[in-house]
């Protein structure tokens, strides 16, 4: 039993992990077929993994409704939204448009609910960015000052009209062939010091990710198994 609960998962992980990693170096057709098969399996398993998340959200909300916890009425909306989408989805056969090119009821519901809800959720942040710009972005230290200065240059440079003033009216174009229009300055900032810093971060993150993957494959890191025996 302990074997089934603890060792077998580690063994499965080890075998699948090594086979997949080695597949990168082994081009033969056997390896290619294996890679195709495994990726296809993974896609199908992903479907159930998504389901796992849905079921747990569903359970949280049904529990809330059953126990009539505070705010349980909102939970009924989750269930309602879900049912509405699923019903129109099956009625439309999963197609977004009817054969004549008009939106099906599934496509219609998507366009008038999911699109505005999701888009607005992040549009709200525009306002908070503005208020934070005023209330919290402080050059408290030299480092924060550098951050703010870069941000302001990028903000100004991202507006085409700044370049109109800079290049069009002030006539600043280049120094001996080195372009210094506002667009070029922003491109340089992003393409050079920014890319360098990002790359430095990438190295560390990538090494960390590789180390974690290795530890998982070789069964040293077992957090994913969860607690218990």
């Amino acid at each position: 039993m302990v074997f089934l609960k603890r060792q077998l998962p580690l063994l499965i992980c080890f075998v699948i992990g090594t086979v997949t990693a080695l597949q990168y170096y082994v081009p033969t057709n056997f390896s290619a077929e294996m890679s195709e098969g495994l990726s296809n399996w993974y896609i199908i398993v992903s479907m159930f993994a998504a389901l796992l998340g849905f079921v747990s959200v569903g359970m949280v909300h049904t529990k809330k409704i059953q126990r009539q916890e505070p705010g349980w009425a909102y939970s009924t909306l989750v269930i309602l939204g879900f049912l509405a989408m699923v019903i129109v989805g099956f009625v439309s056969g999963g197609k977004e448009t009817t054969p004549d090119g008009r939106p099906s009821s599934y496509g219609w519901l998507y366009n008038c609910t999911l699109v505005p809800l999701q888009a607005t959720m992040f549009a709200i942040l525009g306002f908070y960015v503005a208020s934070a710009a005023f209330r919290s972005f402080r050059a408290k230290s030299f480092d924060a000052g550098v951050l703010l200065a870069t941000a302001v240059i990028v903000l100004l440079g991202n507006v085409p009209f700044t370049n109109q003033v800079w290049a069009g009216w002030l006539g600043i174009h280049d120094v001996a062939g080195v372009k210094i229009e506002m667009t070029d300055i922003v491109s340089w900032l992003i393409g050079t010091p920014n890319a360098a810093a990002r790359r430095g971060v990438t190295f560390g993150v990538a090494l960390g990710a590789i180390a974690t993957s290795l530890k998982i494959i070789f069964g040293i890191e077992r957090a994913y198994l969860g607690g218990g025996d």
Partner: protein
Amino acid sequence: MEIVGAWIAVGLTLFMFSFLYKDNPFYKVGENLYVGITIGYFVIQLWYKTWIDKVWDVLTGQAHDRFVILIPVLIGALLLTRFVPKIAWMSRWAFAFVIGYGAGLAIPATLTTSVVIQAQATAKPLVTMPDRSPGAAKATENAKAAYDKAKEGAAKEDEKIRAARYRYEQSRSVSEYTFLTAYRDFTTIVIFVGVFCVLFYFFFSIEHRGPVRAFSRVGILFLMIYFGASYGNTVMGRLSLLYGRVLDLKDYSRQMYGFATPVILVLMIAVLAALHVKNKGKDEGHAA
């Protein structure tokens, strides 16, 4: 149908925007609907795009090895044993498959994309040697001729002449060591120094003293430029999203949609004001 859709879309948009005023029932309605609708949409996509065409069609097809497809289905089903506490441990086999596959694929891919290639792109010659070949000299000459021709008779430099001059400077920077060549070398050096110093900043095995401290200080500055650029761009992103919503709202305020935006806006403000009056004096906070 279109008008109904517009009213729903406007209503939900404004519900979400009402969060700006404060967390309120309208917003909660929008948010909870969003969760349900997204899951519903997802389920339909999974059913038709994965279950039907990758599993069901194969099973009902003619292929002699069609039942192999039941293996991943079984693995997937094992994931769901999580909800049955007694046999929840069986889900570990499935997690082992999912995580093992991801980890195995990630090792060589991450190493190639994020380490090997990035290192190669940084280790460039820090000083460019001019190309002394006759071909390069000839190219410069041609570019110069084209530039001379372009500026002939023109009193002021316009876009076209400038483009010709850039081309000339470009080829001159290859055949000679010009200011432009120096600038390009400078760019290479900045990247080199930046990567080098940021790596030092994230170095935990030695105390940051002496030269290491200097390097890591420079590293921080590079990081701050990165975050500054990231911040500046994020602002643009958020504003674009806001503009997108404003445009839709404006579109829906036309007569053909029954003035959806203004009508709903006024109604909502009225309700929120009423709620405000009703709750006045009560503690409005809520933690759990």
